Every structure is written in C-alpha cells, then in structure tokens.
C-alpha cells in the first residue's frame, strides 16, 4: 500500500467556515489559535463560486459554520444559492444574532436545518464558559427554530467543568423538543488544547455521564436521538479523522484556504491551497495538501504494518503533530503509539489535579494576537 494515494470519491461534505468572527469566547473552540491573523474574509461572489464548484464535484451536505456565521450579512444570499444548487444546508450556530425576522428570511431562502450549540444547561456555567450572557437567548432561539419548522438538533460540548450536568442538559433538550442531542466530548486541538488540563474529564466522570445517557435512552426511546461522542483520550483507540483525510470533507476557511479538516491549518509543511487561486476540483483531486495523508501510503510504523490501519487510517494528524511533534506519527491516543504515555499521563493528571493552576484562556482577538506572537499552538507551545 505505498505509492500514489487512491483517487477519492466526491467531497460529500462541504464545510464553509464563513467567518472567524464570533461574539462568544469559548475555551474549547477549534478555530485556530492564530485566527486573528486570517481576517481577510472571502466575499459573497467567491462563496457562491465555491458552492457551485463544490456541487459540481458532487458535494451534497453543506455546513455553514464559523466563528459565528450569522455575523455574515450575506448569509441569506449564500443559503438561497445553496438551495438552488440542491445542497442540504446546515447552519451551525450559537444563535447569537438570530432574530425572528432573520430566522424567517433564512427559512424563506431555503435553509434546511439549524444546529444550535449550548455550553451547558445552567446559565451560570453557560455564561462562564462562553464568557457572555447567552443562555436566555438560546432558550428563545430554540423556540424560533421550532416555530420555523426546522428539525431541532442541539449540540453541547462536554468537558470536566460541565460533564456532571449531563442529566440537566438532556432534560433541557427533551423539554425543548430536540429530535437529536449531540453530546460531543471536547476534542483537544487549538483553544481546547491550550486549556486541556482544566477541561479533560476523569474516567469516573465519563462513566457517570455515559450511564446517565443510557438511562435517558431507555426513557425516551427513538423520540430523541442521543449521540454521545466518546473522547478519544480515554479510549486507547484512534478514530478516523473526518472519515479519512481528503475522502469526504472539504473545508473552506474564512480566508479561502481549503483544508481536509477544520484544524489542519496548524500542520507543518507547504501551505494549503486557496480557493482564490485554484478550483475546488484541482484542490480536491490534485493538490499536495489534500493528497498528503490520503489513504495509507504515507504511514510510518507502527501504523504501516498495523492490522487496524484501514479502519482508523492512523487517526488524527493534528493530534500527532500537537502531542508527538510529528504529523506522520501514529495518533498518540492509540495504545500502540510510542507516544501514548503522553495521553494516559494527561488523563491521570485530570483525576489528581487539586485546583486550577493557571487561568482558562478565552478565545478572543487579544489572546489570539498574543499567542500568535508567542508561537503557541505548535508542539513547542
């Protein structure tokens, strides 16, 4: 399995990160730590071209994300073009900026689905972790979503500071009539990686949370789908990154950089291509960036001879870079990785950490500028 990477199928998922601007300051944000350096956003015409090129390649699901995509005042235009082209459009939002008028305009433009993210079910925790007072707003936005007839999908990112509230979180989603609740354990890249020692839950916390989710599943049956995304730090097995590098997802960042996953910008090596300079077809099939870790031919040991290599495709390249300092290494969350002790030690520290030794780093422009200058976000950081 060496040589040229396999020719992929279509990029079924097009993720358009419309802006890095965001009114929230979440400590687990997966936007790049140096996002403030990439403020040169694509214009409307560029986005409409990206949609047309993506659809022609066979993309069918469209994620409209950010930052906070509602901060783009051309969102309705983008949604309308997406609908005309036959995309199923998903708006991934904190809900800040969604008025009744805007919700109605987006519905008229053809938006298919709104995924509303919450930080927690209790206002105090919600405000603490997102650093603004947003909980009442989200209650209101949840009602707007129902009133427009959109499927109600809620997303809560779990970590040590909120995972013990999971029963209340599920109760809230049930009360709102959510069809689906995604309980996504934090993935430790970018801002979450900076804050990892405060955010990693203990094994005991995870077990309690999973037991709670199981009780709710028995109670609500298939009325509300409960997705519990297990954290790879605690499992000892690597997961496929976005279903395989350059296999399914094509992410376009706010400044037009095309990425095989939303955190790949941090990786060393040549710069990823930009949609201002190349078509999506060239980017998807021919660019070095999308071919770099496609398939299994790039692998080193222990992955190269591993029986699981086709299942997990070596795991996450960003995690290998962040933890092992080598983007071609086995994902250190895998117990077969020579760097696995870095992960088990971090989880063990979560259980013994008596208190917070340094403050949480909130995702905002001053911190981004400071950390960009300091070079944090690389393995040396």
């Amino acid at each position, binding site marked *: 399995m060496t040589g040229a990477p396999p020719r992929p199928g279509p990029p079924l998922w097009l993720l358009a990160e419309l802006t890095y601007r965001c009114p929230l300051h979440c400590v687990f944000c997966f936007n790049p730590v140096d996002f403030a350096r990439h403020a040169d956003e694509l214009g409307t015409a560029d986005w409409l071209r990206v949609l047309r090129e993506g659809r022609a390649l066979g993309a069918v*699901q469209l994620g409209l994300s950010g930052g906070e995509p509602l901060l783009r005042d051309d969102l309705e235009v983008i949604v309308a073009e997406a609908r005309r082209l036959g995309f199923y459009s998903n708006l991934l939002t904190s809900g800040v900026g969604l008025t009744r008028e805007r919700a109605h305009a987006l519905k008229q433009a053809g938006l*298919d*689905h709104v995924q509303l993210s919450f930080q927690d079910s209790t206002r105090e925790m919600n405000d603490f972790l997102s650093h603004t007072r947003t909980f009442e707003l989200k209650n209101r936005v949840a009602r707007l979503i129902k009133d427009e007839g959109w*499927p109600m999908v809620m997303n809560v990112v779990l970590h040590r500071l909120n995972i013990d509230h999971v029963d209340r979180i599920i109760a809230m989603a049930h009360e709102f009539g959510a069809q689906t609740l995604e309980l996504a354990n934090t993935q430790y890249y970018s801002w979450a990686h900076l804050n990892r020692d405060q955010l990693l839950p203990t094994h005991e916390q995870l077990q309690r949370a999973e037991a709670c989710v199981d009780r709710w599943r*028995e*109670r609500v049956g298939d009325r509300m789908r409960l997705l519990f995304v297990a954290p790879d730090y605690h499992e000892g097995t690597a997961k496929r990154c976005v279903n395989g590098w350059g296999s399914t997802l094509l992410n376009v960042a706010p400044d037009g950089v095309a990425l095989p996953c939303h955190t790949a910008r941090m990786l060393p090596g040549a710069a990823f291509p930009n949609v201002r300079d190349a078509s999506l077809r060239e980017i998807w099939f021919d660019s070095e960036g999308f071919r770099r870790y496609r398939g299994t031919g790039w692998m080193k040991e222990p992955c190269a001879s591993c029986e699981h290599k086709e299942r997990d495709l070596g795991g996450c390249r960003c995690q290998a870079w962040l933890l092992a300092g080598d983007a071609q290494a086995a994902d250190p969350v895998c117990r077969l990785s020579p760097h696995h002790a870095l992960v088990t030690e971090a989880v063990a520290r979560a259980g013994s950490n008596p208190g917070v030794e340094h403050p949480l780093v909130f995702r905002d422009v001053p911190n981004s500028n400071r950390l960009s200058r300091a070079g944090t976000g690389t393995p040396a950081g």
Partner: protein
Amino acid sequence: MNDIPTPTVAASTTVPRIGHGLRLQWEEAQSCFVLLYPEGMVKLNQSAGEIMQRIDGQRDVAAIVADLERAFAATGLAPDVLAFLDLAQRQRWVDWTAP
C-alpha cells in the same frame, strides 16, 4: 418508558409522507436517490428509491403499489412495499398519521 410512541403498521390505506426535515433527491454524482437529513445522508438502493420517490403525502399505499406494478409490469408488490415502509418508519425516513 411511557413516552415512547407506538408505531402503527402500514396498511393499504396508509398515506405516507417523507419524514420531517428530510429531503429526497436524485444525485447524479452517485447515480442514486439519497435521503438527506441534518448532517447526514442515506444512499438508497434502486427499489427503495423507486418507492420513496412515489411518496408525496397524497397517495396511499394502494396507489403507490399500483403505480409501481404498472411501471415495472409486475404484480404482488404490496408485501414488499409494506415491509419497506415499516422499516423506513422505524428509521424515521417516512411518517404517517395513524388512522
């Protein structure tokens, strides 16, 4: 426990509709019908696609079966269609109002 809805079995008078928030469409790049839902997609095989594309929230199962039998010069398709609809309802691809 007590808030699980009781599924009703499809009958010839059932009028199915595509599930809430889902969209059925033909995908040229994949040469098949797909069912789109929030952040996901199901590729339908040919017979599932033929049944699903006849579901419009107006026609009952008897009419859908008759149309399929005409289109494929076949008879006795009703059991297959009913079995598919029961499966599809469990997946929430389709829905109908209980009689």
